[in-house]
């Protein structure tokens, strides 16, 4: 798929020379005595699909609303392209929003909903008709022009909301949990459709979600937010393979995190005494207490790889594509996923597991900061 290859390209060139469409410079937002967004700086490349991902209350929606102009930061500056837009009302910003509730105007037809922004900008008559018809075709809603929003299904309303924003050809499209109200199957379908639409029209999308799978599926780059700050920013692959904090490791997929102490340039001594090899760059000059991480699917049963642990089997769970084993080792509980590549190929578990140093990552010690 075209989408896939684009993400690949970006993974190989994480630093792109393309200009930023959205730039946040040390932005802070307080609500009474709560700091919702805490000194966040961020650049979003032109034409990219960018996701703000995090649990509720992490500041992602507030960040989006500040870009849209619905909230003003207490400190810092927001730029759209080169232009600082802080202090400008929403209607003077070249961005459009797809709201979580869709916010379709119930008293207007689908045609008038979609044409609303065009009319406010002084587009008239046949031009409005042409552009509305074209965008409704793009989202697959041709022929629905005369209906009222309440006569459409949830998925159709979602498309109208998307069309109503896109028809204005904004510099940036903001999406606030746009798929949250849809059922799982429709959500999966819309994820791919929205990604394809974004690819076709090339407008920068900034997407807020708490669903890590959705962010990974759709976004070129993801900023993971926690407590009003960006924990880590990168491509889905970078974040998954090389999480830099325990929070990121725990929020994206499942991680085994084992506490230990740095014992060499490329080794960590776990609390049970086992020494684990890690890539030197993963340590990033850390010393003292750290946590060593490895993804469950990167661990093998048996002694084939360099980093080894042993324990006894606690649980086995068949999850279709894989079988999950949970082992109790002296370094901590460890989950292992073994792909069910052949029928009936469940392996005998000896209690020995191993993984490659290359699959190992290191995060700051998570004492008292266990991720969700």
């Amino acid at each position, binding site marked *: 798929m075209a989408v896939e290859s684009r993400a690949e390209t970006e993974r190989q060139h994480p630093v792109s020379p393309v200009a930023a469409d959205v730039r946040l410079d040390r932005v802070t937002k307080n609500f009474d005595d709560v700091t919702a967004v805490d000194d966040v700086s961020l650049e979003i490349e032109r034409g990219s699909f960018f996701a703000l991902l995090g649990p509720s209350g992490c500041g992602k929606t507030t960040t989006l609303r500040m870009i849209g*102009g619905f909230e003003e930061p207490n400190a810092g500056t927001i730029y759209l392209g080169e232009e600082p837009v802080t202090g400008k009302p929403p*209607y003077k910003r070249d961005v459009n929003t797809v709201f979580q509730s869709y916010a379709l*105007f119930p008293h207007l037809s689908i045609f008038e909903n979609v044409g609303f*922004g065009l009319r406010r900008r002084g587009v008239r008559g046949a031009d409005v008709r042409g552009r509305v018809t074209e965008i409704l075709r793009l989202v697959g809603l041709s022929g629905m022009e005369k209906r009222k929003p309440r006569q459409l299904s949830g998925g159709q309303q979602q498309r109208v909301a998307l069309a*109503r924003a896109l028809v204005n050809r904004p510099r940036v499209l903001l999406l606030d949990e746009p798929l949250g109200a849809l059922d799982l199957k429709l959500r999966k379908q819309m994820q791919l459709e929205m990604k394809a639409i974004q690819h076709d029209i090339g407008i920068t999308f900034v997407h807020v979600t708490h669903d890590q799978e959705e962010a990974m599926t759709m976004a070129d780059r993801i900023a993971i937010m926690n407590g009003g700050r960006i924990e880590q920013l990168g491509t889905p692959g970078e974040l998954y393979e090389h999480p830099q904090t325990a929070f990121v490791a725990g929020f994206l997929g499942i991680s085994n995190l084992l506490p230990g102490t740095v014992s060499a340039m490329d080794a960590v001594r776990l609390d049970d005494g086992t020494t684990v090899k890690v890539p030197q760059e993963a340590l990033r000059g850390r010393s003292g207490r750290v946590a060593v991480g490895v993804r469950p699917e990167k661990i093998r049963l048996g002694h084939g790889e360099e980093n080894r642990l042993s324990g006894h089997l606690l649980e086995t769970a068949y999850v279709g594509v894989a079988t999950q084993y949970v082992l109790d080792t002296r370094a901590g509980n460890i989950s292992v996923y073994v792909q069910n590549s052949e029928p009936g190929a469940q392996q005998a578990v000896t209690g020995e597991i191993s993984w490659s140093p290359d699959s190992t990552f290191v995060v700051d010690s998570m004492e008292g900061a266990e991720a969700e």
Partner: protein
Amino acid sequence: MGFFHRHRGLTPYLLLAPGMLFLAVFFLVPLGFLAYQSLETGSIDFGYHFTWAWGNYWDAIRHYRGHFVRSFEYAGIATVLALVFSYPVAYWIAFRGGRWKNLLLLFIVAPFFVTYLIRTLAWQTILSDNGLVVRILRDIHVLGSGGRLLATATAVVAGITYNFLPFMALPLYVSLEQIDHSLIEAAEDLYASKWKAFLRVTLPLSMPGVVAGTLLTFIPAAGDFINAQLLGSPTNHMIGNVIESKYKELLDYPAAASMSFVLMAIILVLVLAYARAVGTEKLTG
């Protein structure tokens, strides 16, 4: 119990029955009696007789056209004023009231804890010739040295406006309160200024409240007589005053009854025309 199970289709009608019975006894029967009365002739001394006296209607319109016109004029002005005063208040409570919403609504309803008559009498005091309002208006030369407020059309319209304000404010509040704020944000997001967002989104969505409020104010205001009686002079009398005096002082029942029917008919026509103009969809939301 068995009966209800066997005739489940009857249940809604049985539930409706008490209300329908009440309406039949206390609305339809008196209305029929009133219609009968309106076609009688005679006098209180010699008794009234049913004679199909359609002339009563003609007389009502011919002799009291001025009172009818004045009634709808005052009621119309009062309705517009009530709308103009209530809308910002209802808007402010609905959108900015926050946790004070219920208290502020209570303030709007508070006058209802005092009876209509007493409230209007209080206005008599407020607008009286040696009252503070008149003195101030004279001092700043809005009124001449002998100018008055009491016994003027201004006082009557002010009284009606004040007395029916809650009937306007409450439906307005309800319809404004229901508006999803993200719709207004969406309008601003789609390049509508605050004023345009109000005109294109908030105002149309509050129309059910506007329609309900104007009807609840206009209809009783057109038939009102208390305000004209207590705050106006005979030159400000409305059709309600005439009906009241025909009934209670002159005991001319046929004239009073026929005038009542003319008033009802005009109101019905006006309301239907209004509903047609704004669209029936807005009446029901």
